[in-house]
Every structure is written in C-alpha cells, then in structure tokens.
C-alpha cells in the first residue's frame, strides 16, 4: 500500500499502531491519538497521510490542534505572496509554523523541528479484537502510524 514518506525514517524498530479506518479519516481531517503515553496528530492532507508529535518545541502547546494553512512565502520587500496552502501547521499558541510533511519549522528549518512519524494505509487482514466493532473490507483499509 501507499506510504506517506517522511525524511526522518528511523532505523530502529517501530511498532505499527492503529489510528483510524481509512473512511473515517477523509482528506482535510485529522485525528489525535495517544500511543504509549505520547500524543500524536495524524493528518490526511489531500489524500497524503502525515503524523506529528502533538507537542510544540517552543512551550509544549498541543501543536496538532493548530490551523492547517499556507503562508506568506519569503519574498522581496513589499511583495506579499500567499502560497503552499495546506502544507503548513501553525501552533495554536504563539503561531510558530511547521511544514507538515517534514516537521521542520519555517523560521529555522534546520534547528527547530517537531518529531514526525511514518503513516501507512494497509489492508486489514486479521480481524483485530480492538476494532471488531467495525466490520472492515479489504478495500477500505486502515491507517497505521509507526511509533
């Protein structure tokens, strides 16, 4: 199945955790899940899946509750260009902006970033007792995050 790539795929073994049924996470939606005590936001942006740690590197606000938006990209003085719609999340407290696909901040991409996680969409093969309330067909798939 399709995998949303991040630049921070780690070599250490990560476990897959159920996030949502694919049909319950349509484009434009997000879900905040708690995995091993960590709060993680999983996003469906125009059919691509991304996951970010739900804690802002500044003062720890719930970053994944922030607005998904574009931004005024860097320009010459007195040019105002709004672009990159839906690629950026803005922290709900002090407004620091992060690229959703990489977790990198806009103001200092190399030094200030938020942890990202891989997300995959998979066919549900074995019935899983934790989600047996939801009858799942193979076509539907489930969204999994790798933590």
């Amino acid at each position, binding site marked *: 199945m399709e995998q949303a790539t991040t630049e921070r795929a780690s070599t250490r073994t990560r476990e897959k955790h159920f996030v949502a049924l694919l049909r319950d996470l349509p484009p434009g939606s997000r879900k905040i899940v708690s995995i091993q005590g960590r709060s993680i936001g999983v996003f469906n942006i125009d059919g691509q899946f991304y996951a970010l740690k739900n804690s802002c590197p500044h*003062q720890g606000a*719930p970053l994944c509750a*922030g607005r998904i938006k574009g931004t005024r990209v860097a320009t010459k003085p007195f040019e105002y260009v709004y672009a990159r719609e839906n690629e950026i999340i803005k922290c*709900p407290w*002090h407004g620091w902006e992060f690229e959703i696909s990489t977790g990198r901040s806009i103001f200092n991409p190399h030094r200030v970033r938020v942890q990202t996680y891989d997300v995959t969409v998979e066919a549900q093969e074995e019935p899983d007792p934790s989600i047996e309330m939801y009858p799942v067909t193979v076509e539907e798939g489930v969204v999994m995050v790798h933590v």
Partner: protein
Amino acid sequence: MPPRAKEAIIDCDIHQRFKSHKELYPYLSKAWQKDIDEFGLRLTTTGSGGFLNGGTGGFREDSYPADGTMAGSDLPLMREQLLDYYDIEYGILTGQDCSPVSTLPNADYANAIASAYNDWMIEHWIEPEPRLKGLALIALQNPNQAAKELERVLDHPGIVGALTQAGARFPYGQRFYDPIYEVLNDRGMPFVVHTGGEGSGWNGNPTPVGYPSYYIEARQSRAMSYQAHITSLIFEGAFDRFPNIQWVFIEGGYIWLPTFLWRLDSDWKGLRDQTPWVTRPPSEYVFERVRFTTQPMEQGEGPKSLLQIFEWGRAEKTLMFATDYPHWDFDSPEQALPRMPEELRRRIMSENAREVFKLPVRTTEALAAD
C-alpha cells in the same frame, strides 16, 4: 494532563471579555446606551485598530469557547484552561474591550464606560470566582472623575489596584494625575499600566518617530513608552510625593531594564542639579517602587543570559509572573521561564505579586470554604 505545578502561582495578567457589549448596559444610563446602539463603543487599541495582531484574531486558537463567542468571555473555559489547569492561586484581571477608555474624546462617556466595566467585572468575574482579583479601570481625561471612581470601587475586597493603558497624552509622573495618586496613596494601592493605546485617539504616536507600518514594530514601542513613564515618575518626584504607591508595568518587557537604569544613573550624576529633589540614583527608586511582569518572556541566548539580567534587574523584588491568557503570546507557567534557584522562582511566581497586591496566602481552609 500536564503535571500539576506544586508551587504557588499568581498570574498578573488575565484578559476577561464580555460576550456582547450589552453586558455593560445594566451599569450604563439610557443616554449612553442610545449612543452605543447607534455608534458602537468606539474603543480602539494601539494605532487606532489599524495594526494586525497575532494568533487567531489576537488570541490563542484553543481559547475560543465552543459556542463561537469571544476568547476570554467564558469563565468555565478560563477555569479549565488556566485556573484549574495550572492551579493558579490568584489571577489579576486586566480586561480587554474597555481598556482604551482613556483614548475617547468625551471625558464623561469615558468615565461612564470605566465605571460600568468595573461593576461588570465585579459581578461577572470577581464575585463568582474567588481566585480572580480585579484592577479598577480609570479614564484619564479628567483625573478628578477618575479619583471619584476609585473612591467608589476600591473598597471592594476583590479590587486590588487601578488600571490604565501605556498610551497617554503625557507621561505619568506629571502633576496632572495627582488626584488619582492621592486616592491610591491613601490606600497604599498600586497604579498598574498595561501596554496598549499608543497612537490611539488623542494619545501620542506609537513611537517617538511616528507610526510604524507593521504590528511587530508597534510591539517594540512598549519599552519606549514604559521608559518615558518611568523617567517621568522619577524626575517629577512622584516616588517621594506618593510614598505608598507602587507602579506596575505589564507586558512591556523586562530585559531592557538594567541597561536603561545604568544610563539614567550615569546621566543623573552630572544633571542632578536640574531636578534636585531626586536625591538618590534613579535605579534605587525603580528597584523599590516599580514592578514588571514576565510575559512575553524572551529566550535570550539561553537561561544564563536571562539569569544575569534577572540579577542586574533585582528580579527577586521587581519581576512578577504573568500568562496573558488568552492572548496568542500566552506564557506557560511550566515552560516560559528559565531554570533558576528555588527562592528566586518563588519571588517571581507568587511572592512579589502577593506583596504588591496584598494577597493573603490561600490556606487549605480558605480553599475548602470557596
């Protein structure tokens, strides 16, 4: 949930709002209500409202109540996100919508709004929530009226000082303001200034060089207005004329204080005979009688740099913690300040404010009785 703060926290800057300006009507005469129905409240803050702000409409995005009303207008949400969440011992209310009263042309209308705001704050916020204390808003157009308003409300046990904005027609040491200071001096209560109002109505420009273009520039004028007010207080002899008042400057920064005072102390040595009633180095008056709040706290070049400034600024006496909830530049009690020695942190988080606002320690018995 985050771990609960085990320490006492007094938050010196909380902005409460009304859901509709009609909440003021029970405290306003029909004559004023009619004008407001037709023309609105006519209150604009810094730069006559032309500047942008930060966050979502100026507020923390998560601070808007679910019913779609204004951030800061819902006491249960304020309890959930601030008072209970961080276990705040006391919060000092600084209002929002009515704060620019001193920018209005009509002194009587300005005084009526200040008065209505004070009654509204007492009834809607202070009386229902014992952790909240209020500052009495005053309109500076006519200091005699402001003094009367203070006499009217200062005896309420939930009112702990007077409040005005930083923007002004002239600086706060001048004798024009004496009627206000006389009332505060009699009661030993603080005069509290919150940033805002620069360049609005008939107030002076937001900076000494005129109007800047962008919000981030306007924010930097706060230190300039505060420096102008503080020098005025020193050289107009206000600290000696009103020995029982402390002046509090909210949200205008702190890290500039030591270098500003070094400059003043140096200049004073050669210029002291022009204002001979200033008998001590200016910094001494400020350390004794002026207080500042933390938010928005800079990160500096790491904790060491801030601790050095705290030492030079006598932060163990002069600095008081504030969150600025629900504004977008809110400071978290858990993460905004650098690590520091326990006693210094205790002074900043609660004890300096406890002294200025005369707040008793909330004992377990008092908490149980609430």
